[in-house]
């Protein structure tokens, strides 16, 4: 074995600082690995593809006839809410994936390599966007099949999808941090269920926020899930003319409010997760 393959240079800097280009390359390698896994684990793929279809059909046909939203059909109202709920659940894949890597010990391998310290997490959150792109695409098709329509401009609709994906990306970082604290796939799945269900139901996803009783209404109005749902509804043109203007600032400016949430969440949880990752060990 030749000893010259690794040049013992100090070009990487004393602390082994890694250039942006190398960091992006590392993120790409990790994301590619995760994408390969999507295609090899059929259970996951089936879940990603089938659960959105199930949600759309369940809500459209079970609740769709009994919940009345003035001025619009419930299905039209519902779709954006289901989009938001599904991408939120999609974000839990990030947590489950990281917990699994921790359990299997491959994190030790990554940590012993001269790769970027943030690439394992950034690669994971990036590849999980792909899960969500797939889910959203399937949901949109199912939605179109049951009568949902984009009534605004295409550009706005693209903006709506982008906002949903950005929101899920931010939640992915929260899930990454949780997974590093509690590296157990089972705990992650159960815990995220307990947090995400109330978050998506105490919101305007399935019923108008104004219909909720007092404190729940306030919570729903400021719940970021409501904001991203409201934003998607507006951008898809699914809010019929004559609908009363929401009273809360968060729902009057849902795009801005969602973006603020995304930026703050990533700014807080990405560094927290990376620092937690550096200190974590599977042993």
């Amino acid at each position, binding site marked *: *074995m*030749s*000893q010259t*393959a*690794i040049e*013992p240079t*100090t070009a*990487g*800097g*004393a*602390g*082994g*600082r*890694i250039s942006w280009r*190398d960091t992006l*390359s*590392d993120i790409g*390698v990790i994301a*590619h*690995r995760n994408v*390969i*896994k999507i295609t*090899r*684990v059929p259970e996951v793929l089936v879940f990603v593809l089938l659960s959105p279809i199930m949600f759309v059909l369940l809500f459209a046909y079970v609740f769709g006839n009994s919940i009345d939203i003035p001025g619009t059909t419930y299905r039209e109202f519902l779709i954006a809410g289901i989009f938001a709920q599904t991408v939120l659940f999609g974000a839990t894949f990030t947590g489950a994936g990281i917990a699994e890597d921790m359990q*299997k*010990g*491959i994190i*030790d*391998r*990554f*940590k*012993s*390599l*001269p*790769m970027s310290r943030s*690439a394992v997490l950034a690669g994971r959150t990036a590849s999980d966007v792909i899960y969500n792109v797939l889910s959203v695409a399937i949901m949109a098709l199912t939605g179109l099949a049951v009568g949902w329509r984009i009534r605004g401009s295409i550009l706005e609709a693209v903006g709506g999808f982008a906002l949903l994906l950005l929101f899920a990306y931010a939640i992915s970082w929260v899930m990454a941090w949780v997974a590093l604290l509690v590296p157990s796939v089972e705990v992650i799945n159960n815990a995220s269920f307990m947090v995400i269900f109330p978050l998506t139901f105490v919101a305007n996803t399935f019923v108008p926020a104004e219909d909720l009783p007092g404190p729940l209404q306030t919570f729903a109005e400021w719940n970021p899930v409501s904001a991203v749902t409201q934003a998607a509804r507006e951008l898809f043109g699914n809010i019929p003319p004559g609908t009363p203007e929401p009273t809360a600032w968060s729902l009057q400016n849902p795009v801005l409010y969602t973006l603020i949430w995304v930026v703050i969440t990533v700014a807080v949880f990405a560094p927290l997760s990376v620092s937690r990752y550096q200190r974590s*060990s*599977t*042993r």
Partner: protein
Amino acid sequence: MHQTTAAPAIVATGLRKRFGDVVALDGLDLTVPEGSVLGLLGPNGAGKTTAVSILTTLLEPDEGSATIAGADLRTQPGEVRRRIGLSGQFAAVDEVLTGRENLVMIGRLYRLGRTRSKQRAAELLERFDLSDAGDRPVKTYSGGMRRRLDLAGALVAEPPVLFLDEPTTGLDPRSRIELWGVIRELVSRGATLLLTTQYLEEADQLADDIVVIDHGRAIASGTADQLKAQVGGERIELVVADAARLDDAHQVLAAHATGDIEVQVPARALQAPIDGGVDVLTDVLQELRHRQIEISDVGIRRPTLDDVFLTLTGHVAEEPDDDAQRTDRAEVTA
């Protein structure tokens, strides 16, 4: 292989690490000359894995410092990672990916580039006898194949310093001997190796120097022979064919013995401590022949590392807890 003049590839001084109330490392010093193999020998919980985790930058020590291939562990962790390869106790490979994909991924994370990574993956699969299985997902591999792949992963970038943490724990005897062959070949190519093991035989087979650790500190170090000598030196054991010649044989041995000679009359056996190994044995045999003393058995008995371990720590190396370790127990009690 073992050059005393070479600069040390690994130097660690006063490494300490606590986990809550548990002291995992209690001031460990290590020096591994370039191109040599250090065996870190100790029972479970002795601190072996903690030591490897610290030296490979996975854990930060509470106290102490270390230099790996010239790079300082605290101030240049990135440089350290560039110069090491780690193969752990638990095969750290991705089960869903194929063997080849695992190696290419590692190559790319060492920044060998796409082409070179693919080339290295192919070379290593070939060398570790995994070519046929290279395009199958790792979850279809046997335990021995996973370990070989994990070891191949540590070699992707041909790092000058390798850390192998209990590379054969849990393997069946055949896979273990195969893996020993692979490790010997690596060393013959000039790599510096730090190997942890709870198997005395493994340290004896592979290591130039051995550090015995227990409760997070080194309790003895030296070559396998030096360690064995600490416990007691070599002994000649001989059995004479005719009990009547026991006294004559005793006289011959007395000229070479460095201590008291033990005589077992019913077995017609004599045991004498000596210093000088095979040369002394040859002299003794010539004299015995010269005096026409017929013998039915003769040999040099050296203490095993098991004796060393028992003497140093007051307990047997390891209670076996799985099938693969059962072989060792047989050897220990034999």
